[in-house]
């Protein structure tokens, strides 16, 4: 994702990540991975629940964590594309997301 961040931004798309990790864990992780996109922290899972993505008991020590999912949201707040994987190991490839932007005529 990081390598494609600029490509997305040139097309008017910001990548915003969300997980249940608190800021300390996320900061450590984003530094280690060299992620410069916005990485939001939802330790109580409020937003993850509102988006109905909570995978209960799937984390370490049976913690509730988010299932992987991607949403493309337009400037008016409309969801334009949703990707809910059937298998948590299969994650979105940036190339796939760029193809979606082509299809929707974004950027």
């Amino acid at each position, binding site marked *: 994702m990081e390598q494609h961040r600029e490509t997305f931004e040139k097309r008017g*798309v910001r990548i*915003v990540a969300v*997980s249940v990790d608190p800021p300390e864990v996320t900061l450590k992780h984003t530094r280690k991975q060299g992620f410069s996109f916005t990485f*939001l922290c939802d330790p109580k899972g409020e*937003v993850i629940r509102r988006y109905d993505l909570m995978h209960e008991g799937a984390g370490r020590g049976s913690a509730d964590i988010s299932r992987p999912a991607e949403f493309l949201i337009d400037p008016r*707040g409309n969801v334009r594309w949703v990707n809910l994987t059937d*298998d948590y190991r299969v994650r979105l490839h940036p190339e796939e997301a760029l193809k979606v932007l082509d299809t929707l005529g974004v950027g």
Partner: protein
Amino acid sequence: MERKWNSSIVFGFLVTIAAFISTYTTFANFALTSDFSWLNLSMFAVGLSLLGAGLKRTFRQPDRVRGKIRGIVASTLGLIAFIGFLGLHFHVSAQLPASDGAPRVWTKAPDFTLSDQNGKPVTLYEILKSPSEGFAADRGTYVLLVFYRGYW
């Protein structure tokens, strides 16, 4: 003649059990974020090959190598551990919640404010309203919202 211990069965069994135990410990800690636990899979491959080789030796040279029954028991346990490992992966991956209530295409994305990695509050609709590199200033920004399992 003194019959030798069948070392490949012993090592094979130990490697297989180590692969199984480490699947649980690393799975609980890290593997939820990784695509597949190749390390554990390789450990199983090594362990099961050793068990297979050991078993073959036991049956080909029963006068020189001991541990026929032990070999069968160790190999069976090794196989059970391997099946358990595969089951764990496929069972958990098949257990994703239905997410029927997730926002659908052409519905409004629920707004929210969360802290970013630096503790700064970020509001979704403020990002959407903000000018972006790719559009004229009044047109706002698209957001690709990516939910991660996280690193717990």
